[in-house]
C-alpha cells in the first residue's frame, strides 16, 4: 500500500505509452510518444492495476466497467477519469484483456512493473484514487487492494473521500 507518501513525485515518475486518439481526447493529454498520468486532465484519477492473468481481475471486470460508466455521468459532480495499468503485462496481453472484457477506459501495459512499483501496488486488482490539489500537486485519497465488486458502492466511497 502506498500510504501517505509523496504521491505527486510517484505519479510524475510514471511513464505510460501514448494511447489511441480517442483515449488521448478522453484523458486530455498532449500528443507524444509517452505521457505521465500526472498530465491527465482530471480532478480525480482512478488507477486500476490489473493483470490479464489474474482471475479476480477477470471476475471483477464487469463491475469495473460499470464503475467507469458511472464516472462518466455528470451526476457525480466531479471530473473523474480512469485508467487501467496491466501489471507485468505486455501490450499484446493488455489488448487481449481489453477485447475479452470489452473495457472502454484506456488500458496501458506495465511490462516491467515500473508503474506498479511507483505506486506500491504489489497485487492485482488494486485501485489507487488520486485527487489533484492544484495544478502541480496530488493527494492520495483512497486505495483498495482487492476487487471493486460493487460499482455504486465504490463510487460512493470515493466521493466521500474527495476533499
Amino acid at each position, binding site marked *: 500500500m502506498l500510504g501517505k507518501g509523496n504521491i505527486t513525485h510517484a505519479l510524475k515518475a510514471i511513464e505510460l505509452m501514448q494511447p489511441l486518439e480517442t483515449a488521448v481526447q478522453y484523458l486530455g493529454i498532449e500528443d507524444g510518444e509517452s505521457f505521465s498520468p500526472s498530465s491527465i486532465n482530471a480532478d480525480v484519477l482512478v488507477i486500476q492495476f490489473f493483470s*490479464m492473468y489474474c482471475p479476480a481481475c477477470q*471476475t471483477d471486470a464487469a463491475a469495473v466497467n460499470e464503475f467507469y460508466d458511472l464516472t462518466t455521468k455528470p451526476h457525480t459532480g466531479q471530473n473523474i477519469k480512469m485508467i487501467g495499468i496491466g501489471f*507485468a503485462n505486455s501490450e499484446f*496481453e493488455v489488448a487481449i484483456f481489453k477485447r*475479452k472484457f470489452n473495457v472502454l477506459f484506456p488500458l496501458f501495459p506495465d511490462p516491467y512493473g515500473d508503474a506498479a512499483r511507483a505506486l506500491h501496488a504489489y497485487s492485482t486488482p488494486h485501485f489507487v484514487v488520486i485527487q489533484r490539489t492544484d495544478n502541480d500537486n496530488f493527494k492520495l485519497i483512497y486505495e483498495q487492494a482487492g476487487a471493486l465488486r460493487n460499482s455504486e458502492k465504490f463510487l460512493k466511497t470515493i466521493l466521500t473521500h474527495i476533499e
Partner: protein
Amino acid sequence: MALKLVWLTTILCLIATSVCAMTLAEGIFEVDDEKPVDSTLVVEVGEEAPNFTLPSLSGEKISLRSFREKKNVVLSFVPAAWTRVCSDQWPGYNIVEDIFDEYDAVLLGITVDNIPTLYAWTKAMGELWFPVLSDFYPHGEVAKQYGVLRSNGVTERALFIIDKEGIIRYIDVHDINIRPPLEVLVEALKDIEDNG
C-alpha cells in the same frame, strides 16, 4: 457441542462459499526466486515428441498420440500448484481459448502435483477449458522424458508445441521465476499454421 460447531461451519460454508472457499490469492505459497533452469532437455525441435498417457482432472486418461493428424498440441509444464507465477499463468490461457482454436491447437496443462491438489488449485482459478494432467506417479515420468524435471522434483516452466504430425516445433524452457509472454507462443502457433 463440537459436532454442532462443525455442522454450523459446514452450513455457513455452503451458504457463503465466497467467504469460506479459499481464493487463489489467499492460497498462494510464497517461494524465493530459484535457479532459472535446473534440467537438461533431452528432446529438440524437429524430433518426434515422446508419447505419454496421463490422468486428467476429469478422470479421463489423455494420450498425446490421440491428437495426431487432428490438432497441434501445446504442452504447458508449470512447476507447482499454489505458487505465485504458476497460479498467474493458466488463468491467462483460460481467456484465450479462441486463439488456440484459431491455430487449431489444444492446450494440455501438466504438473507433478496429484489430482486432488490440482482439483483444488484449478477450481480456485475458475472453470478451465483445457485438460489439466497429473504427472505425479511415477513421479515426473513425462517431465523426465522431455528433460524438464528439476533436481528438486518439480518441473521447469516449459512450453512445447507439437504439430499434427507429432513433431516438436517449438520449445521454451523459460526462467522458472518469470511467466512466458503470451505473444511469443501465439507467434509460434501462427508460424506453424501459416507455414505448415
